[in-house]
């Protein structure tokens, strides 16, 4: 990669309404002069305004043609109102020095987004590639599909790392890719999942892997409850996701019989003794066999 052209996009004032900032993305910046970039349209609460009305933009006077050499820094107080950051981006890099609103990285297919604060719901929804890193927590439906769509319309490739807690329905309808959550997750993570991997390093609320047909859901902490439609499969000594390996025993379940699925849900054995008690006979049987 050659020299990076960095644009600093700074909010002029704290916005009072949500802002649809889907045009702040390396793909729309490519090949444009700074003046053209300043004229890009932004929806402020449904009303179309120009980028320069809301933001100060600082950077090279002509953006390069190559998407991958563009870096956008978003700064300013109140960036939590910015939605659709990195919409459909296919390369380059976006760094947000603060929070972002919903739909960060929606439908992105390449490049990377780093969010140094919190993110809203639908981080990386329907993404096809690239990577997203959120330093604090995020909202619901990370890497998910939109409501009403068929299973498998969620994230299909790429990686999302959340260094905090996530809301409910992590990876709803996802088909591929990897979601790593270093904190806890809410209810129904991996709902309608058709592939890919979700790793939750700490606790998880009710029913991970409900209605999943394929893929992996790994919970390293306490699980509030699992569905009765899961089959107990085996005890595994450790689980490895990419470079992260968790060296403790996990109970593996086949999920979810209600849709004839063949997905796997791994639940940490030590933290969930009471939950796995109901499978006690089966567990002991397997241990004896092994």
């Amino acid at each position, binding site marked *: 990669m050659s020299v990076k052209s960095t644009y600093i996009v700074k909010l002029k004032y704290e916005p009072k309404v949500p802002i649809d900032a889907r045009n702040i993305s390396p793909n729309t910046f490519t090949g444009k002069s700074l003046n053209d970039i300043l004229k890009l349209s932004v929806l402020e609460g*449904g009303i179309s305004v120009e980028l320069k009305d809301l933001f100060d933009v600082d950077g090279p006077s002509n953006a390069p043609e190559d998407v991958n050499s563009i870096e956008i820094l978003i700064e300013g107080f109140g960036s939590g109102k910015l939605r659709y950051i990195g919409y459909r981006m296919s390369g380059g890099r976006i760094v947000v020095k603060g929070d972002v609103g919903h739909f960060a990285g929606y439908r992105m297919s390449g490049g990377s987004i780093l969010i140094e604060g919190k993110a809203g719901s639908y981080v990386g929804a329907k993404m096809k590639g690239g990577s997203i890193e959120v330093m604090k927590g995020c909202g619901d439906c990370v890497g998910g599909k939109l409501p009403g769509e068929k299973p498998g319309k969620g994230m299909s490739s790429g990686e999302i790392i959340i260094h905090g807690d996530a809301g409910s329905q992590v990876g709803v309808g996802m088909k591929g890719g990897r979601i790593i959550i270093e904190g806890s997750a809410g209810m129904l993570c991996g709902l309608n999942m058709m592939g890919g991997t979700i790793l939750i390093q700490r606790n998880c609320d009710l029913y991970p892997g409900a209605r999943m047909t394929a893929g992996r859901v790994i919970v390293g902490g306490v699980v509030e409850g699992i569905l009765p439609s899961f089959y107990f499969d085996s005890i595994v000594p450790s689980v490895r996701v990419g470079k992260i390996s968790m060296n403790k025993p996990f109970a593996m379940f086949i999920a979810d019989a209600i849709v004839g699925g063949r997905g796997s849900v791994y639940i940490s054995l030590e933290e969930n003794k009471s939950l796995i008690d109901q499978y006690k006979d089966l567990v002991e049987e397997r241990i004896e066999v092994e």
Partner: protein
Amino acid sequence: MVQILIKNGLVYDPLNSINGEVMDLGVKNGKIVDPSEVNLNEAVVVDASGKVVLPGGIDIHSHIAGPKVNVGRLIRPEDHYLTNIPHKPPFKRAETGLTVPNVFRIGYDYARMGYTFVAEPATPPLKTRHTHEELNAIPMIDKMAFVLVDSNWIVLDLIQESRRDMLTAYLGWLLYATKTYSLKIVDAGSDAAWMIKGEGLSLDDQVPGYNLTPKDIIKAIAESAQQLNLPHKVHVHCNRLGYPGNYSITIETMNLTKDLKIVSEGPALHITHVQFTGYKGDSWGSLESGGEDIANVLNVNPYVTLDMGQVIPGRPATTMTADAPFEFVLYHLTRWKWSTTDTEVETASGIVPYKYKKKSYVNTVQWAIGLEVVLLSKDLWRVFLTTDHPNGGPFIDYPVVMSWLMSKRAREDFMAKLNRKALKKCVITSIDREFTLYDIAIITRASPAKLLGLEKFKGHLGVGADADIAIYDIDPRTLDLSKDYEKVSKAFRRAYMTIKGGEIIVKDGEIVKQVYGRTLYVKPEIPKDMIVEIEKYLDSAFKKYYSISLRNFFIDERELRNPMEIPLKTSLR
């Protein structure tokens, strides 16, 4: 109100037998007047030279309002994600949705296509208040609703007891009470069977709990419609819709007119979305098109009319019908989402999203049937263009259907993308007929106006008609409509200008003004003693069957935004 002078347009007006004449049209006070009456100092002059001038389009079958459409919107949020158009103050509201659009898009898209009149074809009597609320909210177009009477227990009771005059009086009362325009029969008797036995009915099966067959129901209601002298008699959705081999039932239903006592003018039965009921063969695997057979029966039976219900392969659709047994079957084919509802006493319904696929054998046969029926019919005044929106496809694809009708090349180009095996069994490949603009004007303007009994003031451009005019930017004198079919469909999708009630509402395919049309309903004249008798009967029937009282059932005229009453002289004595 503005005065408009449309100059040098190429006018097609089948009701006045004008076939492509260059002439001027004047508009004054919302009516069409002689061009000499227009005051040129005040008038807006529209130069329509090199453009086609047609009356405003009329759609006789499009599910645009009512509780089922709302449920369709609720269960299909994915229909609305990428189709949003923000509002544009001060007059244009936000639009969203494709197969189940919001009320504003319905009005705007019809106006953009040059349509100014739409009929909502099925509303359960009890929920018609909701239907009217939604119709009130739809801008731009004139509208009307047809009321469902097929499995209504009161109707079934009255037919069973052979109280035909009472039945006629009840149906007349119902039309006025619900402020609707015509009667709709969906799968006669099937909803009664669906509730009790969980299955549909064929034409000769017995309705459970009654000593009746669906044939008796259709006949009794059709005869009552004759007595009531309704402008549009009965709108029939045939039994066993969506089952292979049902074309024979459709033909049998069409032949029912032979036994009817016909006392008033006009066609006696309208068979709707005939594509869904024109399947030949024993199973889905051996499905064939029954379009040719149906067209042959249509050609010899002058009392029957029908509309296409064309499917659009490659487009998503949301099937919504009062035919609950069929939706149950369809849900188990698609396995995605299903909503089913039962309206007390009156009807059941179901909603299932569906996508017609180009390479699918069955969907290709369905595509062929609709076109075959229309292309093979000899009398264009008895066929109509519909997609049964949103069952076969969204109404915004009418221009594409028009291009298929007008150009053999358009059909051939599209057939290249369809299932070859299915096309081998269809007659469509050998049909050379190409519609002219005059033919299109008949099936989308003149004949619907005639079918609905509105030919005095709608569907034509003669002096005294409502000023509903559509101007399209095509010139058949210089353009080969058969070759450049894409230009034709593009022009029909975005009208150069649409005039509704004397106001210019669309210019260059964009909305420039929001107006609200009228809601039409009939008031059949029923003798006073019969009204007293029927209300006494209904009082007890409502106590027996309904959870609401008779007084709350009646929809008042002030609940309609712009009501327009059409009084009827009946032969009830």
